[in-house]
């Protein structure tokens, strides 16, 4: 921006002249320690000046639209510049012109200038839009000593009034004088009268003010203010209101100017030809007047400026654009503006500054892309024009101009961003939205909405505004181009062809290009740093890139130390991120810096790094770098002779690709861990002449290092693979440290050649072994250089593929693949596992309920003493109801037993512990894991561990071997049980419905429903027999069922014996079931259980632990009857002895009465004489009721006699029926209670079991004589 006149760039604002506040002073003066005047009016004047000065400072970026003026302090009697030149005497008819007009011969623009900065200066400093005049109003000084209470003296009063009138008249005349000059230019004049506070209260003030205004001819509005000395804050208020009051007038002033200029422009466009004709005869070639296009530029520019004064940005923008377009037209023709003339240069400056203002006005409005578009359009257009003028891209002038444009733009953005300007971000709109718009057909008519949508589709990269750092950067790049063009020009330059040098050449010679470049880059760097995200801990890559450019510039300008410092910092990041392509040029330049600085150590380091990168020298010689290095080693001396120079390429690429491979990931103590260490030069690395003297291999751990000394192999083989055996190395051996060994090998690497060092490590103790580092030593003259290397190098961030040399002639490799957890470059040495024998003994299968012993016998078969402990874990069973647990001591039963001690066992000794398994519930598969942990006793271990490898404590401290055994057994219930239940109907009479006995709590008070006989059979099913010790029935009589008796009550002794597999034993027990139980839906729980205590009979004639099995009686569910007739006859009778035959009819229905008819079908063939009812109806049986019919029966024959057949029918269903006689009704089954016996589902059991059907089912009685 500094390269343009500030008038052309600054933001314009209405100008206010302020007079009467003392001489104009620089704004810093208020702070000066001048003695403060005590006069309140002087203080007031000073404060007013401060406040007015602070209203608006001239600036380029000033988008603020508040009504503030640009204040200029002047003397009250200042003269304005002459408005028009006094008309020449012979040309009265011609219009007069301003002294700055190109038509005025004395003007700097005469005859064809466009607009000069002086014109702007005239409007900002010489001519105001409003004129504010501060004046003291005369105040009569009251004689001292007088008080307000004094009676006014009429003489004094009169005198005072006269004095006031006289002074006021003088003041009015002065104002009128001023008013005259301002009126000429239609400038608003405002007078501020300063009066004391007392004066404000004076009733005569109004009259005096009116008088003054009238006399001086001031406007009635906003032209006369009175101010008394007040506090600073109130001064601010006053100034604000003063500006607001005058704002309209200022706008009006500039509007009038605009109107005037527009009129002139309109007149001018109509009268162009007249001008041309009137001027042409008089003018010589040199004094060619301004062309019509020039006038257009002039008028448009003026109108733009006046609009800018008014704060009308849009109008200003429009006029600036028009002016710019007109200028374009002028530049388009060399006839109008011949290149490289003074006017041409002026016009270019004007065009640049108009473009700048257009950009600025766009940016005020946040039209970023338009601003940037204008900026690039300006550069493109003038770039084209420049080519036409012969100052195209190949000239330094062009690049200087482009750089200036970028720089001005960057400065504008920088100023803007300090206040209101926001740099937009260009995040992509969501692709889905974009695709929907893409799919819409592109119509020819494009509305604004569509334009908006087009914008959302993508953006024009040339219109994407970025932060000012980018433009500084561009400016710096352009300045670099400018410098290179200049240098090229300088090469071609000779005094002979001086004639063809452009006029700016001499200037250009004085320019320090590099300083400018450096300044621009530095500003760009700061801005990039400012705009880079703050969360990154290190420098951003963009800033690094600019830092690189800065370093290059430092290098070019010979500041090598600065450059080297920058390079060092930048190289760190480039190395880390493996951007070799960028690193190599950096290192080369850095090396040149080091050369210039004479820092040979740094130089050597950089050369090594360059070698590692396989870089070529500047002249593209493949071995140039190596030769450079050798030359340095030959010709220079290091600063430090005693110690080696360590060139640690830690972050950089390796000089040699190294790879360490152990054949197996794990070895045991005292076994060979064989390894191959390969060192190869890549095809790019040319180090074949570097005189390496030795290579030292350092092992991780207490192993002696191995040194490989160079011995040139002149056998002339051209094999690329060389193999050298390093032999065995012992790690941590007891017999002191081994001597470092020395081995010879050829330490020269041609491209692609590989040196493979093979060897083996033996460790006496557990450890993790690897090669900790390799050190390559180079000694040449006084140089002693050490190059530490990793045993496994990484190139481009990747490790080499591990491979194993299996054949040397021809070289063959075997790729090694291994789990990443066990890297090939490490070998783990583990202790030998302990040898322990474990034997589990038990007598399978375990029986449910018993404590099943499992003996664990551990034998130490190792040659060391071992501490042994065992853990046992019982896996949870999947079978329902199975409940299992184990115990080591029969006290606590659990699923997991830890640390069952076996003690310390010397070799060959065994120890036995017994585990117990208990299972109940249900038979299931049982899985028990037994883990035997053996450990070398502490005291022993310590002596072994202490001297070695504290690095791998995890390996040594945990020298434990675990031996696992799993026991799977299936539990068996030793006794299988089977129940058989038979139900019989009860003959006991039912208590009556209202029988009080039913209220007794006693069992069976409600009567007995049925009787059940339970036959239980136990079978010994296991593979082993059991010895039964007790058998008993535990009665648990309930309200519904009750055990009456059972056989083992009497003969339990028979069951107490040894039960062998397959043996069966039984018991029978009778249970009565209460009548109320019939309401129960569910089965009645068995009223008791058998308990058998037993021991397992072991094969070795031993006995197991005492176990108890319990077997509950089965649940009872007697079948349900409805209407039933029970026939009760004795089984055997005496001949001729009458016996009763009883028939009980029971209605067991829940509802519904029974209408029962009984018929005895007497047959003479029956061996009985029957006395009683032959056929009859039983009284109606209500539910629950029963009726008993008795016959006397006299047997008349011996032998089996059939009981008379009795037919029972229920006619209830037919009671109301029409045809009752025809139907016999429903037959009711007659049950012979002697054979009564049913299973749960009502199936007859006993009758089927006894002799065949027929007679027996009818009821047979044995008649004995």
């Amino acid at each position, binding site marked *: 921006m500094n390269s343009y006149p500030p008038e052309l760039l600054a933001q314009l604002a209405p100008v206010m002249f302020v007079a009467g506040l003392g001489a104009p002073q620089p704004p810093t003066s208020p702070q000066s320690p001048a003695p403060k005047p005590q006069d309140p009016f002087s203080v007031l004047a000073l404060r007013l000046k401060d406040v007015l000065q602070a209203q608006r400072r001239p600036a380029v970026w000033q988008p603020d639209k508040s009504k503030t003026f640009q204040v200029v302090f002047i003397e009250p009697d200042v003269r304005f510049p002459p408005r028009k030149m006094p008309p020449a005497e012979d040309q009265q008819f011609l219009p007069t012109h301003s002294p700055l007009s190109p038509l005025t011969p004395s003007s700097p623009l005469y005859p064809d200038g466009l607009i000069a900065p002086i014109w702007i200066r005239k409007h900002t400093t010489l001519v105001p839009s409003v004129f504010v005049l501060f004046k003291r109003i005369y105040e009569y000084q009251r004689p001292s000593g007088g008080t307000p209470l004094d009676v006014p003296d009429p003489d004094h009063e009169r005198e005072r009034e006269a004095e006031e009138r006289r002074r006021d008249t003088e003041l009015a005349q002065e104002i009128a004088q001023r008013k005259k000059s301002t009126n000429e230019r239609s400038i608003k004049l405002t007078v501020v009268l300063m009066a004391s506070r007392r004066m404000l209260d004076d009733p005569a003030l109004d009259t005096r003010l009116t008088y003054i205004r009238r006399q001086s001819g001031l406007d009635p509005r906003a032209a006369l203010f009175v101010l008394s000395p007040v506090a600073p804050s109130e001064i601010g208020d006053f100034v604000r209101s003063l500006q607001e009051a005058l704002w309209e007038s200022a706008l009006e002033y500039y509007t009038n100017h605009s109107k005037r200029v527009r009129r002139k422009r309109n007149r001018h466009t109509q009268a162009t030809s007249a001008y041309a004709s009137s001027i042409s005869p008089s003018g010589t070639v040199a004094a060619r007047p301004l062309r019509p296009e020039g006038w257009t530029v002039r008028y448009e520019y003026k109108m733009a400026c006046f609009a800018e004064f008014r704060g009308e940005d849009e109008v200003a923008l429009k006029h600036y654009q028009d002016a710019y377009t007109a200028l374009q037209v002028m530049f388009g023709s060399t006839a109008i503006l011949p290149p490289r003339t003074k006017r041409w240069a002026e016009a270019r400056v004007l065009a640049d500054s108009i473009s700048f203002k257009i950009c600025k006005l766009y940016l005020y409005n946040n039209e970023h892309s338009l601003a940037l*578009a204008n900026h690039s359009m300006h550069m493109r257009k003038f770039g084209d024009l420049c080519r036409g003028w012969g100052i195209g891209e190949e000239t330094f002038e062009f690049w200087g101009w482009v750089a200036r444009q970028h720089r001005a733009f960057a400065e504008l953005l920088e100023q803007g961003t300090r206040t209101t300007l926001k740099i937009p971000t260009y*995040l992509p709109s969501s692709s889905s939205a974009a695709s929907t718009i893409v799919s819409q057909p592109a119509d020819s008519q494009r509305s604004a909405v569509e334009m908006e949508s087009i914008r959302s*589709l*993508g953006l024009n990269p040339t219109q994407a505004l970025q932060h000012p750092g980018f433009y500084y950067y561009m400016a710096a790049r352009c300045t670099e181009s400018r410098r290179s063009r200049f240098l090229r020009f300088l090469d071609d330059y000779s005094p002979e062809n001086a004639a063809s040098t452009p006029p700016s050449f001499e200037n250009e010679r004085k320019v320090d290009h590099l300083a400018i470049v450096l300044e621009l880059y530095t500003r760009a760097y700061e801005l990039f740093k400012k705009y880079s995200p703050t969360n990154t801990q290190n420098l951003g*890559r*963009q800033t690094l890139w600019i830092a690189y450019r800065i370093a290059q510039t430092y290098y070019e300008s010979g500041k090598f130390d600065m450059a080297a410092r920058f390079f060092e910092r930048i190289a760190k990041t480039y190395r880390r991120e493996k*951007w070799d*392509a960028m690193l190599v040029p950096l290192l080369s330049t850095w090396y040149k810096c080091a050369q210039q600085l004479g820092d040979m150590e740094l130089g050597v380091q950089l050369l090594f790094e360059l070698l590692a990168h396989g870089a070529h020298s500047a002249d593209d010689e493949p071995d140039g770098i190596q030769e450079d290095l050798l030359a340095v080693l030959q010709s220079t001396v290091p600063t430090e002779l005693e110690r080696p120079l360590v060139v640690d390429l830690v972050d950089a690429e390796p000089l040699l690709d190294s790879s360490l491979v152990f054949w197996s990931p794990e070895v045991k103590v005292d076994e060979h861990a064989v390894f191959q260490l390969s060192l190869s030069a890549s095809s790019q690395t040319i180090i074949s002449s570097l005189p390496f003297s030795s290579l030292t291999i350092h092992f991780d751990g207490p192993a002696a290092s191995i040194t490989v000394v160079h011995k040139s192999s002149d056998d002339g083989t051209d094999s690329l693979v060389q193999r050298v055996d390093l032999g065995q190395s012992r790690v941590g051996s007891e017999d002191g440290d081994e001597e470092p060994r020395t081995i010879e090998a050829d330490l020269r690497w041609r491209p692609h050649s590989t040196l493979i060092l093979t060897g083996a490590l033996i460790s006496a103790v557990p450890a993790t072994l690897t090669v900790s580092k390799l050190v390559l030593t180079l000694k040449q003259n006084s140089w002693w250089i050490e190059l530490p290397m990793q045993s496994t190098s990484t190139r481009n*961030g990747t490790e080499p593929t591990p491979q194993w040399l299996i054949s040397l002639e021809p070289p063959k490799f075997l790729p090694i693949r291994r789990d*990443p957890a066990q890297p090939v470059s490490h070998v783990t040495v583990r202790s030998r596992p302990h040898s322990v024998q474990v034997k589990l003994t038990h007598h399978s299968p375990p029986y449910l309920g018993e404590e099943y012993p499992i003996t664990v016998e551990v034998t130490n078969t190792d040659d060391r003493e071992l501490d042994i402990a065992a853990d046992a874990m019982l896996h949870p069973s999947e079978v329902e109801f199975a409940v299992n647990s184990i115990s080591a001591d029969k006290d606590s039963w659990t699923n997991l037993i830890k640390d069952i001690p076996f003690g310390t066992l010397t070799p060959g000794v065994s120890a036995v512990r017994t585990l117990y398994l208990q299972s109940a519930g249900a038979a299931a598969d049982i899985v028990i894991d037994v883990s035997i942990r053996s450990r070398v006793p502490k005291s022993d271990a310590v002596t072994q561990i202490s001297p070695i490898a504290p690095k791998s404590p995890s390996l040594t401290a945990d020298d434990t071997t675990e031996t696992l055994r799993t026991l799977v057994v299936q539990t068996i219930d030793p006794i299988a049980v089977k129940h058989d239940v038979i139900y019989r109907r009860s003959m006991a009479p039912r208590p009556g419905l209202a029988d009080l006995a039913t209220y007794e709590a006693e069992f069976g008070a409600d009567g007995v429903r049925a009787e059940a006989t339970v036959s239980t059979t136990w079978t010994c099913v296991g593979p082993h027999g059991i010895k039964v010790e007790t058998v008993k029935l535990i009665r648990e009589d309930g309200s519904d069922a009750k055990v009456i008796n059972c056989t083992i009550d009497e003969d339990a002794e028979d069951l107490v014996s040894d039960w062998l597999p397959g043996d069966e034993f039984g018991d029978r027990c009778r249970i009565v079931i209460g009548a109320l139980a019939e309401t129960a839906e569910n089965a009645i729980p068995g009223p008791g259980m058998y308990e058998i205590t037993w021991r397992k009979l072991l094969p070795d004639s031993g006995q197991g632990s005492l176990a108890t099995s319990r077997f509950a009686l089965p649940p009872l569910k007697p079948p349900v009857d409805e209407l039933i007739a029970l026939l009760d006859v004795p089984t055997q009778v005496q001949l001729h002895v009458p016996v009763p035959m009883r028939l009980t009819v029971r209605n067991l229905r829940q509802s519904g009465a029974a209408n029962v008819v009984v018929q005895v079908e007497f047959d003479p063939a029956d061996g009985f004489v029957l006395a009683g009812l032959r056929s009859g109806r039983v009284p109606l049986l209500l539910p629950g009721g029963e009726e008993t019919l008795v016959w006397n029966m006299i047997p008349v024959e011996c032998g089996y006699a059939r009981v008379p057949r009795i037919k029972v029918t229920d006619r209830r269903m037919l009671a109301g029926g029409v045809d009752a006689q025809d139907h016999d009704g429903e037959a009711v089954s007659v049950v012979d209670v002697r054979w009564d016996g049913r299973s749960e589902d009502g199936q007859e059991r006993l009758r089927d079991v006894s002799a065949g059907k027929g007679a027996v089912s009818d009821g047979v009685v044995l008649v004995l004589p």
Partner: protein
Amino acid sequence: MPPQLRLNAVAFVSPQNHPILIRTFSQPRQDELKYHYIAHTSLDVIEERIAAANATKSTECYLGLLYVEDVAVYGYMTPLKVKIIIALELSDAVVRDADVIAIFRALHTAYRRSVANPFLRLNAPVDNVADHAVLLQAGSARWNGFRRRVDEVGRSAGVVNA
């Protein structure tokens, strides 16, 4: 009809910010190094964009216009965090995101098909899907399939204008 896009350079950068492949199509070839620098500096903007995208939980691969120098630089990140950066020649016209995305998709496909080459893993020490060493190899001089595919995309990018 928008003017054709001129693809000047393509860069593939690994998730660890190591360069995988940088191809330049512009003539003359000598400013190849410039595109290394452009790709490298773009990583700054990409990181910024990713942070912004993470904040809004966006899963968009396309990162938009990164910055403008004398070329317009656009960025893209694959779901596996491989960054693709292209440099388009500046022309005073709207560059439609859809066109740029189409180029990126093609380049992404080229990359995917190239790293799917099973022979890349022939000598890999471990079978690890996310082993980026393998991915870096794809751009190395030994494997030209990737190069060829990218060049094809570069050639046909000029035709992408529909």
